[in-house]
């Protein structure tokens, strides 16, 4: 059992008014400080390579898609947001997605797809804004998911850095 003794107030504290004035002084000071809120649409969000926005598919410089539709992100996805159908291609990499859909109504932006991807083909972009007037509009297909590699360069470098750390620690 703990007995908590109430702190004895001094005479000044008991008089209340000086303490009230002290409190008022603090709040008055706050009024002239810079607000910590952000005016969102005008003042866009600050994103870094650590930001885990919506997943996007990386398109190489030669405008070929990196994804080989291996289905690992599909199976890694805890929200069952991804659906992939593959098809054959003439490129060195024989397989590419015919249909790649991410249902952003389901997506929880966990980044497991990015982690599962063996080809650095799906990356968490810095795009966070998501709105539509229909459910169907939030199921993004290939056309809405493709992003050039230049747009995701920083994230790819960051993920590689993280993976390097992991690799050295596991090999020891």
């Amino acid at each position, binding site marked *: 059992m703990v007995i908590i003794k109430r702190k004895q107030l001094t005479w000044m504290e008991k008089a209340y008014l000086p303490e009230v004035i002290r409190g008022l002084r603090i709040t008055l000071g706050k009024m002239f400080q810079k607000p910590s809120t952000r005016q969102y649409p005008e003042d866009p969000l600050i994103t870094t390579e650590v930001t885990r926005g919506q997943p996007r598919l990386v398109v190489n410089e030669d405008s070929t898609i990196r994804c*080989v*539709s*291996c*289905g*690992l992100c*599909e*199976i890694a996805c805890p929200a069952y947001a991804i*659906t*992939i*159908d*593959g*098809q*054959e291609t003439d490129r060195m*990499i*024989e*397989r590419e997605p015919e249909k790649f859909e991410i249902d952003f109504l389901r997506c929880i932006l966990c980044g497991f797809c990015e982690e599962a991807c*063996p*080809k650095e083909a799906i990356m968490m972009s810095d795009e966070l804004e998501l709105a539509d007037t229909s459910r169907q509009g939030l199921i993004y297909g290939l056309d809405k998911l493709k992003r050039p590699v230049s747009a995701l360069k920083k994230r790819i470098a960051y993920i590689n850095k993280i993976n390097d750390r992991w690799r050295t620690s596991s090999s020891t």
Partner: protein
Amino acid sequence: MTKIILNGREIEADPTKPLIAACEGNGAAVPHYCYHAGLTPVGSCRICQVEVKEGERPGRVVVACRTPVSEGMVVNTESPAAHETRRECLEFLLKDHPLDCPICDKAGECTLQDVTYNEGQSEGLTKEPRDNFEKRKSLGDKIVLDQERCILCSRCVRFFDEITGKSQLAIVGLGSRSRIETFADRPLVGNYQGNITDICPVGALTLKSFRFKARVWNMTKKSSTCGECSRGCSVSVEVLRKGEVKRIRPRFNEDINKWWMCDTGRFALDGANPTNRVPALVRGYSGLEAADSDDAVAMARAAHAAVDKHVLIASPWVTVEEGEGLKALASSLNTEALFLSPAANDLKDDLLHTGDPCPNRRGLEELGFVGKSAEEAMELLAQAESATLFGERIAELIGLDNLKSLPSTVRTFVFDGSSGAGLLEAPALQAVVGIANWVERPGTWVNIDGERGKISAARTAPSGIRQPSSVIADLLHTSEVAR
């Protein structure tokens, strides 16, 4: 029977089979690529290493697929020496095997992948670059060969040598230049090519029709029976995301098809994935109109009650259970139960295909149905007042032109679950009712030798499409009981 000691346990082994079969049959499965129970063992992949002690001699590591069992031999499949040897063999197998599992169609059912994962041997010690071979070598119109992925187990070579009896593939080249090729680059022929993709332990041989279409772990497999001929091979129907049937593969059945099936059945995907299906069409003022299948069945019932001269023809795809119902319906209509029995086709061979396209001929005949050819059926139909054509593919088997030629005095009702049911148009047609097809309903077929084969629902029928059994029950006025 020979007594051996397997992993410290005394078991009885069949002396006519190699050691690997005894191991596998007694819960100590040994990884293997070249060994296949249906083919001669050759011992080329060397992965099935086990440690064997005989008498007083020290233990030695041997390949289980080429070692006969002998009395009192002591076998250890999990000894460190066996594992070490396996791992070394694995490294050789992986020396030129590309690391493209994300692309490879075999990923998920690849034994090389599984063993590599289990043995923990994911990286080779060699720094040499991998040898390059032809990655997309077409072997005819059905199969593609990836020579890089091939581990030269020679199962496909032996399949053609031993099962079909017509050698078509061979390992050509020497040493590290060895590769699988057809003789003089001729395309593969024959109705059993598809089997080599099943027995290929890696992703070297793939079906053109399935290549890169689906990942195997996204498919649900259901045991069923092939309906393309009266052999009734046991198959496994694989459905992608509960929708389309992507693959039909043979299922081991000692009595009927062993490990194999013909390409006719394997590529019968169009029949399994019908298009243009409708719940029902009924004749309205402006021709056939989409309707609820209950209304269409009610129409058929009314017609059955209204006229006297009935003809009932079942499709050969009707199951035994549905056949019983149709039989009862025929007797209530006071007519003979008939089934359509098309003429034998020219696909008959010595191996599996019977050439008879009626999967349940024997079952229906045992029930008392009488087979009629399309011409005989047409003669009967032309004299009838009401015609009930029941079962999937019935319209196709009678012939669409034949149906169109029926006079409109014959009140014809077609219960069909195959492609184009929604496109039927004939003056005699009163209603078309879509029913579940053979991958959407359970049932039994009896094959030519009297073996019973079960078919099962690998996916649910599209909304509004009814099970044939419930339609028959409705036609019999016993729907309440049946439901």
